[in-house]
């Protein structure tokens, strides 16, 4: 069955996907392709093209995604994008994934929590479009290869925020800063305005852990609302230059994490202040 799905996806990618999406995906560079089209983590260009085509309705029409400051993303070399996370379903990650591919031609590798690879189908589809499980070894490997990563420093507590806590950032984990320093990677702070309004979370049942899911969300709406997405890319920060330099304001990784969190919170607040409404 999976193979059929695979074959259908390939066929769809090759024959029915609009040329412009195929061209975007074909320009992406995959490392470690041994002639089968897959990289070591399972990403495949045809699947990326398939995901671009499939999500184009959500990206262009439903969420009417707009982005600002995309020039802040380096076009090559290791980079970590660190956005806020919210919205019950990880649609913010999907829209960011779309936006980065379309605007820069780079395949961003979203780093997923450990429960994601446990989920049947989700784990397979995610890995084909570039998602990687969040083990430190994987992140190290990707940065070493000069790839673009998307790490949600809030993690699961971010996406599982209830509606009353929307756009209030959770603890900003600093692990990615250490890795960025080690690999001389840039960190681009990203603020996404919109997702926290798309599917207001009322409560969650923590004891429900079926099929690898960490909890059962109880949202106000059964499907995401057509809110407007705005993605703001901040100026890149280079931890290997910031940490340890004489003129640096940051004496520790935690200090830099606090700074980046405040920067993202500031960008979110600005975005919220400037927007005309949730749907506009």
């Amino acid at each position: 069955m999976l193979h059929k799905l695979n074959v259908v996806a390939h066929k769809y990618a090759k024959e029915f996907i609009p040329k412009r999406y195929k061209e975007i995906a074909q320009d992406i560079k995959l490392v470690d392709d041994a002639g089968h089209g897959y990289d070591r983590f399972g990403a495949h260009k045809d699947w990326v093209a398939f995901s671009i085509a499939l999500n184009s309705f959500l990206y262009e029409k439903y969420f009417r995604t707009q982005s600002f400051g995309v020039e802040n993303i380096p076009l090559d070399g290791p980079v970590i994008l660190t956005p806020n996370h919210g919205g019950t379903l990880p649609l913010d990650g999907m829209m960011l994934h779309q936006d980065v591919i379309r605007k820069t031609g780079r395949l961003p590798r979203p780093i997923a929590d450990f429960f994601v690879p446990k989920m049947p189908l989700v784990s397979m589809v995610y890995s084909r479009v570039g998602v990687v499980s969040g083990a430190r070894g994987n992140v190290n490997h990707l940065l070493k290869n000069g790839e673009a990563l998307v790490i949600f420093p809030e993690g699961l507590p971010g996406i599982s925020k209830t509606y009353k806590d929307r756009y209030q950032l959770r603890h900003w984990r600093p692990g990615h800063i250490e890795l960025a320093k080690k690999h001389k990677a840039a960190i681009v702070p990203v603020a996404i305005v919109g997702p926290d309004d798309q599917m207001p979370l009322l409560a969650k049942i923590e004891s429900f852990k079926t099929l690898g899911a960490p909890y059962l969300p109880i949202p106000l709406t059964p499907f995401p609302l057509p809110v407007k997405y705005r993605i703001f890319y901040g100026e890149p920060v280079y931890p290997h230059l910031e940490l340890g330099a004489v003129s640096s304001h940051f004496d520790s990784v935690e200090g830099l994490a606090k700074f980046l969190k405040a920067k993202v919170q500031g960008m979110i607040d600005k975005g919220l202040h400037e927007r005309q409404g949730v749907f506009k």
Partner: protein
Amino acid sequence: MRNILVTGGTTKVGELLIQLILKDPESKVILALEPGDDCSIQHRNLRKISLDLTKERQVKKVFTSQDAQDLTHIVHLAMHRGESKGFKHHRLNVDSTRSLIILAEEYQVSHFIFRSWAEIYESHSFLPTIVTESHPIDLSSQGSQWLKDRVEADQILCAKMGLSKVKIKILRSSDCLASGCGSQIYSFLDSRLCFTPFGYDPMLNVVSPEDLAHSLFLALDYPNNGVFDIPGLDNIPLSEICYKAGKGYLAIPEPILGALSSVQRLWGDKNFDYKNHRKRFKYGAILSGERARKELGYQPKHGSDWNSLKKELNPR
């Protein structure tokens, strides 16, 4: 000049390795054949002896024989490839490894090369997909004897490293999709019906017999001890492996796969046990091979021969 004792040399990997060694006219090979086995290679520097590795006395006799007086290397490839349980298999898989390394120390053999298995590595959602030599080993009690024997043999040699005068080199290789090479994925493909866990399609790495033989050859003269991961050129999902091998497969919800696998074993497909691959068939694992590249100069060059594999697995 090398004088090399090779065990398990009747497999495709073993034969390729022997051919590589014998290209050097100064090298001699003593090929230990299990009773009933034969090897097609003929060469003036190749001597074939019949040896039951499970009988320690017979093994010791080899070391005291005239041919083995100046033994410089041991390449230990012999492992029971079947999934069947039993004391005899344990003796071949584990005890023979132990006795060979002890004899190598006693008779001052310089190098001991052991072909180990990537399956011994733990696989889980919280562990890296890219596996290095320091990756956790699967020490759980859930694995079958096939797995436990391989972990034990590997660890016996790891425990000797650095304390013994013998230079021990352990090559943990990816699955080698050729008959007789002990690959569980090959046994999986050789089953009448291939069942995979529904909703998962892990990335796996397979190594060609040529590359594996070449890595063993490179390890012969490596001057230090070491554990090396030996990946192949092909990084490929399980579903594509089935497809390229011409095997149909059925995706079954994971909780009932173990039971189905047991039924299959009763039915006659005895060489594959899903128990050993419960996590690997969900999360996958790919060997990094960076150390082998840096230290041994190993770089995979040959992809698997999928057409031959297809013909081999589907003779009709």
